[in-house]
């Protein structure tokens, strides 16, 4: 199967051609939603940032600016108040990519109603342009794959996660980029991942980011080894953090690690990366979106409806029971491995094919259902 996409002026490729409606202040989130309703086909994000230079401003600015220019975005309609701090975010975004922006400010529009009308007009015009752009043949290096798991259970580590690892390995071998995240969910398995690093320095970085995250949690007086696995995980049959971590790490297959990324940082060259992210599904997906991930696979044992505003997100069930019970959430069932009806390699090949089909335009369950979450990850004063 061949790969097609939308080539962007900075050399990145998109597998979707979104018109993104992005508010730069929480009070404009409602206007963004109103534009999304008024102009079917555009996608809006909302968030809770109040435009203040808070402690987490750098992290917020990196996440917001990154998603504005994700390669799956054709054009972004920016809803702003009209303040200097917003200009900083736009400058950061434009350093990554030349995604066209239409900026509508409340200061100039004078009222929310006028801003919503101006934003709707800009969105409709951008959508016409987006529809006119044609897909073209894309190289394997176009793929920036995000690996995620959420609501894990005892099957995760033996079905969906290693099957996704098979697909990830094949993409990485062909010159694509793949990113594993969720720092606290590889705790206990980091020494095994470090052995697969391209250099001893990268291996040490993997060890260090896990230690740093755990230390920052300990600093709050919390023992992560007591808080994980979560209650939902335990109900799903997971017994220890190490069991969860060994299973979570399987998503990244057996390829060599090219590097370690800070939250929401863009990978500099192709290869397999580890990104320092929270396990919180939406904080992770938002960090991936800001880093330029253009397609994601999300394995789940308990089932979840969530998706990303800009990244098509494929849901793979770890067990047949859940896949049958929640059909409108799941794109592919890897539970067949545990059922004994398919092998790991067979399901890995199915995931690989589905990634290609979705990259080429097939809609995921999350996209059909309109699930496109976004949020801003904060450290709340953690300096570690």
């Amino acid at each position, binding site marked *: 199967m061949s790969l097609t996409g939308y080539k962007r002026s900075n050399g990145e490729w998109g597998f979707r051609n979104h018109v993104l409606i992005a508010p730069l202040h929480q009070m404009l989130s409602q206007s963004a939603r109103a534009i999304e309703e008024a102009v079917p086909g555009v996608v809006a994000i909302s968030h809770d940032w*109040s435009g203040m230079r808070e402690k987490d401003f750098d992290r917020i600015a990196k996440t917001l600016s990154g998603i504005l220019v994700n390669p799956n975005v054709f054009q972004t309609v920016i809803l702003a*108040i009209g303040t200097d701090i917003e200009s900083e975010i736009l400058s950061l975004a434009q350093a990554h990519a030349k995604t066209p922006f239409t900026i509508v400010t409340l200061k100039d529009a004078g009222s*929310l109603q006028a801003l919503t009308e101006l934003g709707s007009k800009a969105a409709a015009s951008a959508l016409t342009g987006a529809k006119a752009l044609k897909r073209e043949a894309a190289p394997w290096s176009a793929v920036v794959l995000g690996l995620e798991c959420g609501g894990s259970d005892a099957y995760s580590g033996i079905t969906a996660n290693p099957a996704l690892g098979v697909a990830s390995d094949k993409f990485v071998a062909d010159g694509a980029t793949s990113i594993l995240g969720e720092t606290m969910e590889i705790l206990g398995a980091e020494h095994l991942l470090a052995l697969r690093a391209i250099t001893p320095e990268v291996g040490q970085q993997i060890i260090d980011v896990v230690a740093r995250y755990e230390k920052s*949690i300990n600093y709050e007086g919390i023992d992560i080894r007591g808080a994980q696995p*979560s209650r939902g995980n335990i109900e799903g049959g997971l017994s220890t953090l190490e069991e969860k971590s060994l299973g979570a790490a399987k998503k990244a297959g057996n390829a060599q690690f090219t590097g370690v990324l800070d939250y929401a940082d863009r990978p500099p060259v192709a290869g397999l990366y580890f990104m320092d992210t*929270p*396990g919180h599904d939406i*904080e992770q997906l938002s960090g991936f979106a800001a880093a330029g991930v253009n397609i994601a696979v999300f394995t789940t044992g308990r089932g979840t409806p969530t998706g990303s505003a800009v990244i098509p997100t494929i849901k793979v069930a770890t067990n047949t029971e859940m896949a049958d019970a*929640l059909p*409108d959430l799941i794109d592919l069932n890897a539970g067949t491995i545990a059922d004994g009806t398919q092998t790991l390699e067979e399901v890995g090949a199915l995931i690989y094919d589905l990634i290609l089909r979705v990259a080429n335009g097939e809609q995921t369950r999350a996209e059909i259902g309109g699930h496109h979450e976004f949020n801003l990850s904060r450290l709340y004063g953690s300096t570690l």
Partner: protein
Amino acid sequence: MKIQGIKHADRGVGVRDHQLILPSVVCSTHVSRRIATEVGAITFAHQNGCGIIGIDVSGIDNFFIDLANHPNVNSVVVTALGCETIQGNELNDKIAQDSTHYLVIQESGGVEGTVASGVAHARELSAKFPGTVADLDLLTVGLDLSRDVANLAEIRALFAKENISLVEATARSGSAANFSSLMSQKAHVILSFPDENQPPTGFPLIPVISIAGSGALHQAMIGEFDLARSSSAAEILDCVIAIANGKKSKSELSNNGEIVAPRSVRSV
């Protein structure tokens, strides 16, 4: 000062008659919005609920309980995913009222099943727990003091004279944080003095009255404010009484403003 309010089962007398669709986790916000749009209820884009640790667990739990028990609320549908840190069933138990229903996506056949069930239960609750007109004996007004207010002493004195209870929030980190604090203090109406470099904003369950400052930003969007910068204590009081009696504030008309749950520890 007598206000004509609305009496709600178990929640006392409020000044609005809102149904709340409460997502217990970010994963159920889309389902909540679909239910809320269908039945005309209030919801919000909750950003957290999973991967939270330490004091944030009880902090967000208590914040949700305060939201669900606010006097402007007639009934609540809690929507949970099922595997999140804040377990919806425990939250539901703590709200502990007949006028609350609890739904779990992972146990309701997925998204469509949850939306259908949520809409049906929301309608049933509205029919079973209608707000009834009642006198509000003690109006509680929340003051969002995100900037310095020249005639604050006069406002306090006049409101005290009229037997209006004042609760205050003085953080300078944007009005949204102060609104959350004032909600927990059961303010029926909020009087907001936003920072000069910040727009006026709202809070979905509570009418917010915004008073403009003198800076260029506020003057450029003056139509979004309820009151001009030179408003006297008496003019502010008149506006509060009108809004408490049912007139819609600017933020209610535009539906703007997110509910921001207080957080203090990073996610795992």
